[in-house]
């Protein structure tokens, strides 16, 4: 308590900043699509360099007074004027700029989700070094020059932790250009969200499937096994697929093969998984979806509230992963 109060006293600017920020954030509205940065919504404060600049100008003023040096005064006043002028330029660098959501590419939970943000400059004046950051005052890696009457796409990185829909965070569009003496910013919250898939985990998709683990071949209904022959055992083959009788005779491990497996059509079923934790089941399913897509299989996905019919390809894969990401288990 006492420490924070002391800190507040030592950094008056910081506490003022915090107060301003609360006031400002109460006024940010979530808006879709191109949001024009209005003059009234731009906030501006001197940077640390700006403060140093002011101190230097003041020192020059004292020096000029001491020496009654007219050209010293001229320099001092030129710099003072420069400071005031550059404040307007930094502010003007943001005014009337438009910010638009430009989508995002889904990622797996734990990875960094990049929201693409379009900066549209409808004016005839070039805008320089427009920075997007999550925190006010950060330097940020994402900046862009926006030439007159054009749009530039830059991004905003959000670290994801969980699967699901990731709402685009509120972010600051800011500028220190041209001289870095002032920091002008505004808060933007675009009505936009991205998707974080469950991060894939668990065992890889087995070559031969029975229904016990939630992945099964279409034909693996009980009693309809159409035994097609045996082949040599490979590492990773399920133990239950080993043809023990033949193996015992030949002295080498062989596994059973079924004719339907060649049809490459499998069902991935949430309910058939045994893991008690639904999140882990989703991660396992995500793993298998990826594996299946990679192996070029055709698969369908069965969730308690949804079924996605069998298909192949990247689009199908994305659809399944999205379903996994957005799946909301009903509590019982």
């Amino acid at each position: 308590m006492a420490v924070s109060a002391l800190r507040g006293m030592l950094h008056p600017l910081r506490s003022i900043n915090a107060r301003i920020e609360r006031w400002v954030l109460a006024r940010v509205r979530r808006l879709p699509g191109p949001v024009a940065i209005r003059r009234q919504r731009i906030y501006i404060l001197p940077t640390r360099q700006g403060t140093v600049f002011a101190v230097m100008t003041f020192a020059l003023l004292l020096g000029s007074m001491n020496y009654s040096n007219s050209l010293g005064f001229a320099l001092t006043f030129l710099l003072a004027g420069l400071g005031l002028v550059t404040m307007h330029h930094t502010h003007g660098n943001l005014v009337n700029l438009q910010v638009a959501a430009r989508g995002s590419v889904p990622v797996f939970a734990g990875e960094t989700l990049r929201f693409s943000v379009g900066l549209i400059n409808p004016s005839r004046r070039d805008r320089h070094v427009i920075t997007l950051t999550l925190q006010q005052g950060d330097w940020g890696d994402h900046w862009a020059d926006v030439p007159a009457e054009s749009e530039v796409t830059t991004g905003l990185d959000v670290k994801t932790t969980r699967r699901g829909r990731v709402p685009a965070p509120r972010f600051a569009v800011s500028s220190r250009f041209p001289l870095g003496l002032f920091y002008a910013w505004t808060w933007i919250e675009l009505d936009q969200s991205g998707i974080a898939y469950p991060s894939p985990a668990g065992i890889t998709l087995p070559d031969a499937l029975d229904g016990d683990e939630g992945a099964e071949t279409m034909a693996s209904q009980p009693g309809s096994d159409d035994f097609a022959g045996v082949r040599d055992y490979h590492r990773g083959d399920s133990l239950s697929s080993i043809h023990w009788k033949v193996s015992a005779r030949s002295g080498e491990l062989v596994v059973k093969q079924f004719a339907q497996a060649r049809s490459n059509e499998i069902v991935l079923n949430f309910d058939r998984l045994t893991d008690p934790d639904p999140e882990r089941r989703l991660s396992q399913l995500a793993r298998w979806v990826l594996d299946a897509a990679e192996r070029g299989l055709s698969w369908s996905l069965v969730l308690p509230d949804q079924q996605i019919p069998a298909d192949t390809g990247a689009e199908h894969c994305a659809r399944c992963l999205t379903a996994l990401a957005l799946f909301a288990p009903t509590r019982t």
Partner: protein
Amino acid sequence: MMPPVSQRCLPRLLVVLAIVILPHARNLPLWIPAFALGMMLWRLGVARRGWRMPGMLIRGGLAAMAFAAVLATFGSINGQTPGAALLVLMAALKLTETRTLRDYTILAFLGYFLLGTHFLFDQSIPMILFLLVCGVLITAVLVDINHPDGSLSTRTSLRTGAILIAQALPLMLVLFVLFPRIPGPLWGLPSDSGANAVTGLGENMSPGDISQLSRSDEVAFRVRFDGPVPPRHQRYWRGPVLWTFDGRTWEPGFRSGSLQAGTLTDAEQTVRYEVTLEAHRHHWMLALDMPVSTPPDARMTPNRQLVARKPIRERMLYSVESALDYKLDPALEGWPRRLALRLPVEGNERTRELAARWRNEETDDRALVDRALRMFREQPFVYTLRPPLLGENSVDQFLFSTRRGFCEHYASAFAVLMRAAGVPARVVAGYQGGEMNDNGQYMIVRQSDAHAWAEVWLEGAGWTRIDPTAAVAPDRVEVGLGAALPAGEPVPFLARRTGSVIEAMRLRWDSINAQWNYWVLAYGPELQRSVLSRIGLPDWRSMILALTGLITLILASLGAWLLWQSRSAATVDDARRIWNRATRRLSRLGLAPLPHEGPRDYCERAARQSPDLALRLRALVDAYVAVRYADSAELDRLREAERNLRRR
């Protein structure tokens, strides 16, 4: 954490710093700019050749060495020259640790600061140009380093810098005129403050001093007369008065702080004038023979010489009144009289013999003076800027063998001769003459007008000015130095008074300089008050009000201009909006556009249907097509056409 700065900014920063430091080569020992240049090359080597940045140890060592070297060179780190030297060295050392934006920014700020140090040494008109050019350059560097990948073209950053400085200029002017000035100094000036390399009279006079000075065209002071200008032969500008002679050098002899000013009687023919004296780092001020008033911050010595309370380190403006007709010190007794007769114990024997002979032949002091002047006039004495060097018995040598000398030789020899003959005498150094500048309505007195003459004390007349040079070269006093010296002498250009175009131009330039000095450099508390009260701002309150008002106005216009620049350039959308408004209106009249119709077809059809609108419809569609496909400047025409359509 501040981001690092692109390597591409480095060469630009180095070039700009070099330009900013360059003029210090005139004021500082050469090793300092050389050191700075060396550090710049090292830094460039780091960037280009992958040399190593110096470590902490080397940096610390270099800093300590630089500090010690400044101390050794100047004997102190206090003062404007050592201060400027330290600042240059600091900037150079800072170069060796520039990586991040912060370092670069600090260097750019140091650049601004360094710019300020130049004005301690030089405040001439070209310096304001230097200030603006360097201001643009440093600002451009700041723009450059604030662009993360340094990809701005040199042209863009220079243009941005120039725009920023240009927009700061009106603010600078307003602040310069209206920002309340308070009388300095705030904490005292270092002993070496003021312009460097000043020329001017010294406190003493040795043979050769004044002839050296006479080769310079530099301005010593300028005078503005209230009323008529005294004739040239009366324009003796009184400087140091010298009493003691050691055989070679004349010195003031006594510091007469406590004594009263010399008694002046029968002062007539007074003139008032205002002197703008250039800095010379001594105490003496100048006034026409014989000053009767004492300006503030000055005092009058027993010799009736004006002396400033502090050494004159800056251009000084004072007004004073002089009497051209006067009697100084009707009585001369006691030790001043003895001092005015004292000569070195030995030396210059022939001069003493001559004086003794004259003393026996003449009874009257006046006759003695005339006799000496007659000697200078009638014997083959030569007035020259290039006198031969004189040995031990300088006066003997001059009077009896070389007979070639400049004013200081004549004044000195004359005073010695008079003292040897028992007439109290002293030497006065100062300036004689001065020329009117036709442009500026003022008089310029240059170093080439430096002069020395003598004063003898005569019963009934007091101290009387005698100029032996006038006996040898009357033109020196009547016309000027150029006319008095034979051709081929190293006379400064302006002293020749040729009346050429170049001379006229230089006088014009001097007049501009005088204005600059008067209005800009001397703009301090007093001038500010008088200027501002003349334009209707009599007190502090109104001054501050005007200042804030004007600054707000300028900034508001700048802000409005920037907003206007930032507005959407979407004139095409504007055109569509106007077009839609027009079609809505036409729809209400039953002339709705059909989906397949282009604007032109639509208008042709509408014109056929209601011929009374035909002309206006054609005007509308022409303007619309022009805006959409050719020229957005036609927008006004479209607006006009749409308005016409609404009229019944």
